[in-house]
């Protein structure tokens, strides 16, 4: 191959970069400024920052800054290069071959290569690691080093959610050298490839500093090279009111999990900005038990769906900070079927009509009866977050329709016991995840009624639904997956298996100087883009 002449190189560089630069300047009126520290008010102290072993919700937020995935997902169902510059999936869906970037170094200076990727997979698969992330690699068989920058992952059977899982935090490469050196301490002193590096713990505050060598940002982020911020400080402030006070005083630049009742005020205040990121997965919902009377009757289930004013639920429980959900997947889930919106718009008249048709009559507005049987509903929920308030609001709305509703809020284990026994009509669920496979399988597959975490709380055991779910899990053909998931959503709503309430979201309130806040698909911050206006 002939050597490139310098002028040619220059020309190519100009042709490529000038329009890019112009685009950049058009898109951003203010140039990002380097430097500064962002202190973040966070609900819980990160416990373990080892992505391959453990991911609690609160820890994932931090790990996104310290680690890079092999593949990024900028939009639902779309995958772009991360630490893997390219990848190939074999026709049978069993082998994923990754061609890695060659310019990547871990924070400890050791090179990122095929051995590091193999190390990660082997580590998760090894029972001695006690990894809670084992399910993320599904039917993993083995990882094979092809050359220094090429690695093949062999699966025992096709596993469609693999791509989505690769884009999450769980499958982020960690420095093998550091893991071997630090062992159990690695989770407290993580070493990854990300734009920010672990510096120190100061009491309960975690300090991260900019990675000066970072030059492997994914193309969809707003720049290349090191991050703008010098430092990130994760301040643990468990009490919401205290977090808000610290934010107002400027002791922190932004807070997560703001006090919900204060969000509206912050939206009006020009000194602050409110970010809401709706996440993919299963919305906050109440699965309806189709095996228990009276919800074994489709008309009763449909009446429940028509009769709940979800916007009002959101206004009362989330102080308006959420979007109404109409189906089993949130709007930001891949293969979300927008047709679900046509089902069950709020209509009390329709609900009453359905109940009357089902034989549940009332005289004078009391509890409806069929013969001498009263229209009773049992609701169960576990004490966490807004579950109690949510249940109470729904209970009140159902009572208005002529139901006699009991609502038991308990600890999780007592709740799980009720789920197993099936002694309820309405229960509770929500789930955040990049691929619809997870909520679809867990919540509507017949194998999950008594198996796994017993997440199939509708108790649906329908070969047709199972077939859609299995197809979505195995097919690597996107069109096939799309078709089966769309049909699944239609099936679930036509049979009124679940009362969807609202799409889950993360809320962040920040001071106005924080610029270019961005999020990954699951609603986690990407501080790489962020800069401070001074």
């Amino acid at each position, binding site marked *: 191959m002939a050597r490139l002449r310098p002028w040619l190189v220059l020309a190519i560089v100009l042709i490529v970069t000038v329009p890019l630069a112009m685009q950049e300047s058009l898109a951003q009126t203010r140039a990002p400024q380097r430097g500064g520290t962002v202190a973040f008010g966070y609900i819980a102290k990160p416990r373990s920052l080892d992505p391959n072993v453990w991911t609690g919700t609160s820890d994932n937020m931090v790990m996104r800054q310290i680690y890079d995935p092999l593949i990024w997902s900028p939009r639902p169902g779309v995958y772009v290069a991360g630490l893997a510059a390219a990848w190939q999936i074999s026709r049978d869906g069993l082998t994923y071959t990754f061609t890695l970037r060659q310019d990547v170094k871990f924070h400890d200076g050791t090179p990122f290569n095929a051995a590091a990727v193999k190390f990660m997979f082997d580590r998760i698969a090894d029972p001695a690691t006690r990894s809670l992330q084992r399910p993320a690699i599904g039917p993993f068989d083995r990882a094979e080093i092809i050359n220094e920058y090429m690695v093949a992952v062999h699966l025992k059977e096709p596993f469609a959610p693999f791509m989505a899982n690769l884009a*999450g935090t769980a499958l982020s490469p960690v420095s093998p050298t550091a893991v071997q050196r630090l062992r159990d301490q690695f*989770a407290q002193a993580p070493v990854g490839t990300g734009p920010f590096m672990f510096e120190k713990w100061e009491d309960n505050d975690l300090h991260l500093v900019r990675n000066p060598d970072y030059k492997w940002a994914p193309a969809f982020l707003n720049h290349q090279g090191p991050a703008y911020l010098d430092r990130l400080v994760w301040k643990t402030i468990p009490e919401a009111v205290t977090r808000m006070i610290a934010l107002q005083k400027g002791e922190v630049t932004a807070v997560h999990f703001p006090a919900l009742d204060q969000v509206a005020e912050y939206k009006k205040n020009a000194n602050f900005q409110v970010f809401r990121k709706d996440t993919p997965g299963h919305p906050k919902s109440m699965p309806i038990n189709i095996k228990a009377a009276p919800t074994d009757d489709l008309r009763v289930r449909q009446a429940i769906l028509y009769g709940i004013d979800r916007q009002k639920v959101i206004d009362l429980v989330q102080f308006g900070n959420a979007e109404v959900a109409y189906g089993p997947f949130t709007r930001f889930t891949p293969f979300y079927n927008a047709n679900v919106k046509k089902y069950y718009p709020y209509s009390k008249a329709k609900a009453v009509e359905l109940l009357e048709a089902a034989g549940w009559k009332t005289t004078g507005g009391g509890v409806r009866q069929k013969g001498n049987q009263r229209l009773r509903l049992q609701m169960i929920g576990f004490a966490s977050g807004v579950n109690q308030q949510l249940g109470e609001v729904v209970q009140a709305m159902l009572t208005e329709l002529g139901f006699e509703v009991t609502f038991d809020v308990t600890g999780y284990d007592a709740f799980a016991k009720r789920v197993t026994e099936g002694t309820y009509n309405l229960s509770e669920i929500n789930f955040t995840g990049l691929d619809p496979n997870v909520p679809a399988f867990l919540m509507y597959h017949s194998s999950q009624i008594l198996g796994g975490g017993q997440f199939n709380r509708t108790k649906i055991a329908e070969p047709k639904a199972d077939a859609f779910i299995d197809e979505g899990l195995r097919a690597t053909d996107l069109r096939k997956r799309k078709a089966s998931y769309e049909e699944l959503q239609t099936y679930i709503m036509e049979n009124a298996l679940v009362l969807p309430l609202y799409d889950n979201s993360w809320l962040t309130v920040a001071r106005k100087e924080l610029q270019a806040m961005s999020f990954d698909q699951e609603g986690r911050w990407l501080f790489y883009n962020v800069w401070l206006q001074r």
Partner: protein
Amino acid sequence: MQRYLARRLIQTIPVLLGVSLAVFLMLHALPVDPVRMLAMEATTGTAPTTEVSDEMYQSLRRQLGLDRPLPEQFVRFVWKAVHGDFGKSFRNNRSVGEMLFEQLPHTLRLALAGLSVMLAMGLVLGVAAGQRPNSWLDTASMTVAIFGVSMPIFWLGLMLLYVFALWLNLLPAVGTGPAALLLPAITLGFQGSAIIARLTRSSLVEVMHSEYVRTARAKGLRDRRVVLRHALRNALIPVVTVVGLQFGGLLSGAVVTETVFARPGVGRLALQGVIERDFPLVQGFVLLAGVAYVCSNLLVDVFYAVIDPRIRYA
């Protein structure tokens, strides 16, 4: 005195064993499975960890040592604790002893600051009220005291934050510096100070009617000297007892105060441990609290002898 101390220290062993056993049984009697909790926690990740297979569930249980019979688990815990090993946290595999001792200085600092507030406020209010019962000063002091007893710590902390950190902007809301210690110390000490104020008052009122006070007065001593040198010293005996008991209150109060003011400390660590059913962490904390309690009571006993020469230990 030394023999007395030695005897007391030996007596603490069955106390600590009892406390450990009680907590151990309580934790295991809870209808909650820590292994499942562990799996549940991660359900919002990309991987559905609720799909934890039975095989993995069992191996997790084995590794946490939860598959052994209860008596064996307890004996193991005690045996290790005697050797200074409190086990490893279920959550992140760190040594519980290390986690607790890392946080302990923060809690001690807070507890001491709270104790100072408690004593200073309690004694000043109590003496002011007790010296002149039924005066306006008495009424005012006791109103403050009732306020203190009835106010939940949590609420008091938030109100102090609103007033001093936000509105007046005098103090930081969160942090670990000396200025950031003031509000938590007041929050922590206020309730105890109310109790001490009331006790000091009633105790002082009683002593002021005793004969030796009348004698002191008859000698022509000044009022201040009568109260501080003669009356207060005797009135303090019940107060010291209560201070010792309040120490336990300080520890539990620290859990709340540390949470409201986002301070590091063993209280918050333990709270997290309880929520997450991190058995080794909770057991470690309880043992630590037990030791602290026993020590504070011992100190109180020693203190009796210091303030009242009539008390002797042999």
